[in-house]
């Protein structure tokens, strides 16, 4: 009986907490700030995709009067759909479905809430709806810059890439990276290994190990599983290039440069549209020329002058259109 009582207590505790959670969702008055809700597939501090959006919302908050509510870790697609619909029902002004895998659900939910603005990405598809924005990134550009630097820094002539699943901005980044390397020296070997998982850290580590054993002295990778790969990189003194967020926290001594997604570029346009009553569903793509993508260099690991110059030249070329990554 005592055991059962304890169990009852535990469950009651959980339910009570859930009850508190429910009560906080009250209505709002017209003078309140713009309410933005975000649904993200991984942890909001994953140093990758989800965090890039959380950081961007923080930056957006410096310029606009916004109130942000985040549901993270909804890797179950249907849970995310329930959260998206829930936010729309609760009257949020903008609902962000941050994950290309949520598009299927969003295309069915958005028509039910014509007065709510939805945004999702990375994608280039608004389903023909006027209340759906779609955000994407030319992540091949940062990949190209990273690749250019990587090609200058490799001594072994072998570079490793640890990718999750061949999709969207990830494929774009990796293709851009390979193109960047080849633009400097076509003879450099780039081994690309998609491990088929966004989250399997152990597999990422072993893939990185395989790259090291294949002779790689420079690596890159995308998504939250790279924390496994950077561990191996640190152990072997292999240089690392990041994407999505600044990945210096994963290894001050190895992370050379990171491409940073500044979603606030797209978000600010959506907020402006909302404030000016000009909401019209469209695709907004961030790149280096419009400032939606930037590079972050590790101050603790400065580049040689000529390498930095080469990287800056590529960035300038991408900005003014004189250079193309050649990636579709």
């Amino acid at each position, binding site marked *: 009986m005592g055991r059962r009582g304890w*169990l009852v207590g535990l469950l*009651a505790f959980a339910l009570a907490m*859930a009850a508190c959670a429910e009560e906080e969702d009250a209505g709002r008055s017209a003078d309140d700030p713009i309410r933005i809700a975000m649904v993200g597939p991984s942890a909001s501090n994953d140093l990758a995709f989800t965090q890039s959006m959380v950081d961007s919302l923080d930056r957006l908050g410096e310029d606009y009067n916004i109130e942000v509510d*985040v549901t993270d870790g909804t890797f179950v697609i249907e849970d995310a759909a329930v959260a998206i619909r829930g936010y729309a029902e609760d009257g949020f002004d903008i609902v962000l479905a941050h994950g290309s895998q949520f598009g299927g659900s969003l295309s069915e939910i958005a028509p039910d809430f014509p007065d709510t603005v939805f945004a999702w990405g990375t994608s280039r598809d608004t389903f023909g709806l006027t209340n759906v924005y779609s955000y994407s990134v030319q992540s091949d550009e940062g990949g190209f810059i990273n690749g250019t630097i990587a090609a200058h820094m490799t001594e072994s002539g072998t570079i490793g890439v640890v990718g999750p699943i*061949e999709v969207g901005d990830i494929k774009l980044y990796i293709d851009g990276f390979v193109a960047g390397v080849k633009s400097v020296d076509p003879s450099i070997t780039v081994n690309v290994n998609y491990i088929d998982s966004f989250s399997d850290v152990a597999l990422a580590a072993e893939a990185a190990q395989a790259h090291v054993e294949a002779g790689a002295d420079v690596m890159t990778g995308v998504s939250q599983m790279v924390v496994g790969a950077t561990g191996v990189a640190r152990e072997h003194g292999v240089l690392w290039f990041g994407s999505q967020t600044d990945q210096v926290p994963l290894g001050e001594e190895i992370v050379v440069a990171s491409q940073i997604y500044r979603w606030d570029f797209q978000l600010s346009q959506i907020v402006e549209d909302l404030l000016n009553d000009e909401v019209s569903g469209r695709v907004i793509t961030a790149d280096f020329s419009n400032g939606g993508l930037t590079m972050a260099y590790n101050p603790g690991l400065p580049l040689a002058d000529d390498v930095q110059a080469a990287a800056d030249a590529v960035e300038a070329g991408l900005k003014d259109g004189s250079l193309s990554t050649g990636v579709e």
Partner: protein
Amino acid sequence: MLVVLGANPLTGYAALLDGAFGGAKNLANSALKAMPLLLVGVGITIAFRAGVINIGGEGQIIAGAILSTLFVLGFPDVPRFVLLPLTFLVGALGGAIWGGMAGVLKSYARVNEILSTIMLNIIAVQILNLLLRGPLMDPGEIEKGSRIPHTERLSGNADLPILPGGTRLHLGVLIAVLMAVACYFLLFRTTQGLRLRAVGHNPFASRYAGMSVKRNVVLAFMYSGAMCGMAGVTLVFGSEGHRLATDGGATTFTGAAGFNGIVAALFGGLHPLWTIPASFLFGALLVGANAMQRAVQVPAALILALNGLVVVFVVGSMYARARLARAASESSDQDGESDSRSPVRSADPEPRNPP
């Protein structure tokens, strides 16, 4: 007296739940979350009653989802009232095949079913990934180059109709409850059910009574898998996206219903009817966990940890309950439904040879 443990906490929580999820919207969400748990839980119950342990819910859900998706992709224009029932049948078949494999492996190759079902789960996830990133990928995704691993939006004729009342509740919830009742009749009101339970209760006696233990073990797995397969159908055709989707992970599609269903079944005292409120409770807990995480930053993983404790304690208390029940029946010599003794026992298709 079948569910001493299942019943008491449930009645206790009825009021609490009401307060926690008073709104129709939240109740509907809880019911929707509970729907696959109930179908899986009922399936698990059949298996456990027949003395086999089915950990393969995840794989059987996926198998049912894949086969029913293929079916609807192949016959999108069949009218709804024909297509929907057939879709459920095909999904049940998919789950039954996947579950049946574990049954055959146990009966005819003496492979421990716990291990085989876990391995079959892994295989099913890989097949799902293979199909969604290959032949089943939405042609539009290939065209656009975004290559999101999901199917196209499946035929509207196969959508599970939303029930009236202004919530998201759809037909799948009713079907799940209906199946629970059907399984109650199967287990307790038919000779087939009697055979399954007899095999689970005492395989040796059943064999002497002329029953084929092997065949009944396979059958139990097929019934069990069929329920899980139907859970897969509700997850695809009742989803917001009306399509089969994944991101490569094991639980992105199932939401771990294959495991959580076990918890619901145990909490329901391995009785199909009690599994209905038990799954609703766990559905509500899971929905509540997400809300809780959002509001007070207590990770939803807490509920997972609690679920684990529930399993351990429920199973742990079975022996004590069995002893109490035995003592009671001995003292009063009155034996109603005396199988409140742990029904979870291993049915061994063959007597073990001493080495």
